[in-house]
């Protein structure tokens, strides 16, 4: 049997006033396995710790119980004490006789009895404690960033600047994301591309960043510090190693398709770059729209390319890599106007979403920044902006607030007014959410200086009447219905997680909330981590947010990644649940209860295999295992059963 020492702390009078220390000491002296009981006034003080050290040596103890305060407070302290004299830290246990005994009971006899029972039960645990070493996990110091919007760009640059390698995977042919589409940005109205494109170029030129655009994650295995990933690069039909980006092919291509970047306001070619400042600035051929792929004729692009870069036989390729951490920054889509039956279901040409209006406002956009409406190119004299479209509407669409639309709608009205001085912007709103530095002031400017008319209420219907768009709404402040015959309507559509994110999260085994956004480990204290160790979240993929918040969160993920990479190896708590292969029947019950996929059934052998690094030590499988093969370390069935008996003993 083990040689256990019990150290009982008085905590001044905090414990001693309610618990009869002498009686406790006496009681434990005879307890099986206990070879020494020692009390002291302040166990955590230096002299107290020295007593423990001395006694461990002199009494040749191989396990100790400190009966004192809550383990939350000093478990670490005493375990380190043990370590300095060569005792395994996991052989040190704490019996909480302060917070859960002396402080909560008044009657000395009762408290003393309870203290005895608590200590006895912990002695029983200590008797069977195994010596454990933290599991050491090596770290691959390379990060994978998924998504090349401002979030992904910021995260990649920040990690790379800490000296670690980064692979940035973007599904479009260029990085930049939604921010590249924006005109000017609130609250300072600086030009979006002016502040974004230098960062895009930095990414392309950074020696630590491997940029993989037109690519997506195909497969992943492994765990924190040791992920194996497979990345699929779609067929571009242009050999980017040969291509110089001269653009001749684009110029000559006869086939057009609606430009995604310009929200369908403009056309692009079948061989194209999404926008002129694209990074990398090399084209891809859009298989769906290319005449050659449809009819077998054309090949003009191939003919004009003097570098022989066009390759119609190119196929998708796969790259396998090992990374230690992953940042998911897959961003957002705008909820399609198509879903708004009451606002014309996307059939009215002059009823558009905010992102389309950004393109109209953008000086690099189809109208060169002049506000012209899509149907006939005239300058709209009255524009109605409608907020909360699809947001805050649990009955028909989504319950949440999309957070950015209050601000960008205000921005839109302002920019419109700056461009069309005699124009009248109206904003239908239900609340104005302008919580941010300088945001309220921005909103006030729109009210005071730009004559934006704010109407408090919802719009029930939008319909076409001749060349006008009639907007039927209400001003609830006055309690009167409003009808405006506008030239154009801009809808602040809800923000949705990017298409395909759900499948991606299934691959990554991270959670999404009921609205499809990525779930953070804790809404306040771990807002940039996923629940899976080593996978971090940034940008609108986690929740709707504006650029400042996106950049802040992306920078935070980079610091989490650097944190991880700065460790020599990862230490993993060893209180895990393994498997006793002799007992395991391969029933698989434990596999189904494990929230971390730490357990896998080996069908051939008929037993379960445990990945100790993934196990977080909840013990759920231990409770579920019918054969006793799954035993949580230092919380074994025998230990728990002996503890129960000790509590019930006289």
């Amino acid at each position: 049997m083990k040689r256990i020492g019990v150290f009982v702390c008085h905590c001044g009078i905090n414990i001693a006033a309610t618990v009869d220390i002498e009686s406790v000491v006496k009681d434990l002296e005879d307890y099986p396995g206990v070879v020494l009981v020692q009390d002291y006034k302040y166990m955590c003080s230096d002299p107290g710790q020295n007593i423990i050290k001395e006694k461990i040596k002199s009494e040749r103890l191989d396990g100790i119980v400190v009966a004192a305060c809550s383990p939350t407070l000093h478990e670490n302290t005493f375990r380190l004490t043990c370590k300095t004299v060569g005792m395994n830290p996991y052989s040190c246990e704490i019996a909480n006789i302060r917070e859960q005994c002396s402080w909560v009971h008044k009657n000395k006899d009762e408290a003393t009895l309870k203290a005895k029972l608590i200590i006895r039960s912990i002695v029983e645990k200590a008797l069977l404690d195994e010596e454990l070493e933290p599991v050491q996990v090596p770290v691959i110091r390379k990060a994978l960033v998924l998504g090349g919007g401002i979030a992904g760009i910021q995260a990649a640059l920040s990690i790379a600047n800490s000296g670690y390698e980064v692979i940035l995977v973007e599904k479009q042919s260029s990085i930049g994301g939604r921010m590249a589409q924006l005109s000017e940005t609130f609250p300072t109205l600086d030009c979006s591309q002016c502040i974004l494109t230098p960062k895009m170029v930095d990414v392309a030129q950074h020696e630590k960043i491997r940029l993989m655009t037109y690519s997506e994650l195909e497969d992943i295995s492994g765990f924190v510090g040791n992920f194996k990933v497979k990345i699929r690069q779609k067929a571009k039909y242009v050999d980017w190693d040969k291509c110089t980006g001269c653009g001749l092919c684009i110029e000559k291509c006869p086939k057009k398709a609606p430009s995604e970047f310009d929200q369908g306001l403009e056309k692009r070619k079948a061989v194209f770059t999404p926008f002129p400042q694209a990074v990398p600035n090399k084209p891809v051929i859009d298989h769906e729209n290319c005449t050659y792929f449809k009819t077998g004729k054309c090949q003009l692009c191939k003919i004009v390319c003097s570098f022989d870069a066009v390759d119609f036989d190119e196929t998708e390729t796969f790259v396998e890599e090992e990374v230690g951490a992953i940042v998911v920054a897959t961003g957002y889509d705008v909820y399609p106007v198509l879903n708004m039956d009451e606002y014309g279901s996307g059939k009215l040409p002059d009823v558009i979403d905010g992102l389309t209006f950004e393109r109209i406002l953008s000086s690099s956009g189809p109208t060169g920044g002049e506000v012209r409406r899509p149907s006939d190119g005239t300058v709209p004299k009255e524009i109605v902006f409608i907020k909360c479209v699809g947001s805050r509407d649990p009955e028909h669409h989504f319950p949440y607030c999309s957070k950015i639309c209050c601000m960008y709608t205000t921005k839109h009205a302002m920019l419109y007014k700056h461009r069309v001085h005699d124009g009248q912007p109206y904003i239908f709103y239900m609340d104005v959410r302008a919580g941010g530095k300088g945001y309220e002031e921005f909103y006030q400017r729109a009210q005071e200086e730009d004559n934006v008319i704010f109407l408090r209420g919802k719009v029930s219907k939008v319909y076409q009447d001749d060349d006008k768009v009639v907007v039927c709404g209400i001003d609830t402040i006055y309690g009167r219905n409003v009808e405006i015959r506008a030239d154009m309507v801009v809808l602040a559509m809800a923000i949705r997680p990017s298409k395909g994110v759900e499948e991606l999260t299934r691959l990554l085994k991270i959670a999404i909330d009921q609205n499809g956004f990525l779930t953070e480990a804790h809404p306040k204290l771990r807002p940039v981590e996923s629940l899976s160790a080593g996978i971090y979240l940034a940008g609108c993929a986690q929740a709707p947010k504006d650029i400042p918040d996106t950049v802040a969160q992306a920078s935070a993920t980079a610091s989490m990644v650097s944190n991880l990479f700065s460790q020599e190896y990862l230490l993993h708590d060893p209180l895990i649940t393994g498997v006793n292969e002799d007992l395991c029947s391969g029933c698989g019950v434990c596999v189904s209860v494990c929230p971390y996929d730490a357990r896998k059934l080996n069908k051939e052998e008929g037993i379960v295999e445990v990945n100790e690094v993934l196990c977080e030590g909840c013990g759920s499988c231990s409770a579920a295992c019918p054969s006793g093969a799954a035993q949580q370390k230092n919380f074994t069935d025998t230990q728990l059963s002996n503890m129960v008996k000790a509590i019930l003993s006289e």
Partner: protein
Amino acid sequence: MFDPKIVAFFCKWCTSAGADLAGTSRMTYKPNIVGIRVMCSSRVDPEHILNAFKNGAEGVLIGGCHPGDCHYQSGNYKTLKRITLLKKMLNDLGIDKNRLRLEWISAAEGKRFTQVMDEFTDEIKKLGKLKINQL
């Protein structure tokens, strides 16, 4: 006066921390319940509960995090399922199902912790001594 012995299992993250808070706030409650700190309420095997009754416990209490708050994502849901099942079985064994209780108590609910302790103790006192022939 009948003074029952009650065994409790508290998860480390919520209920045990709630008990500590009751302590640091110097609240008081009845001393009959002695707790065992486990990592997660889902570590508690129904076997341990039956074992407690067999060895003379008059009542068993499990404390976990509120639904949605589990440190291990879904441990408390598993506990709920297991306890609900076990309660059905207890009746067959002639043990009043009210002798087993599952409570969600968060790290901030020191007050609630003491209330639950007192309430459960009173309830067990009312139920009287547990008589079981065999298990």
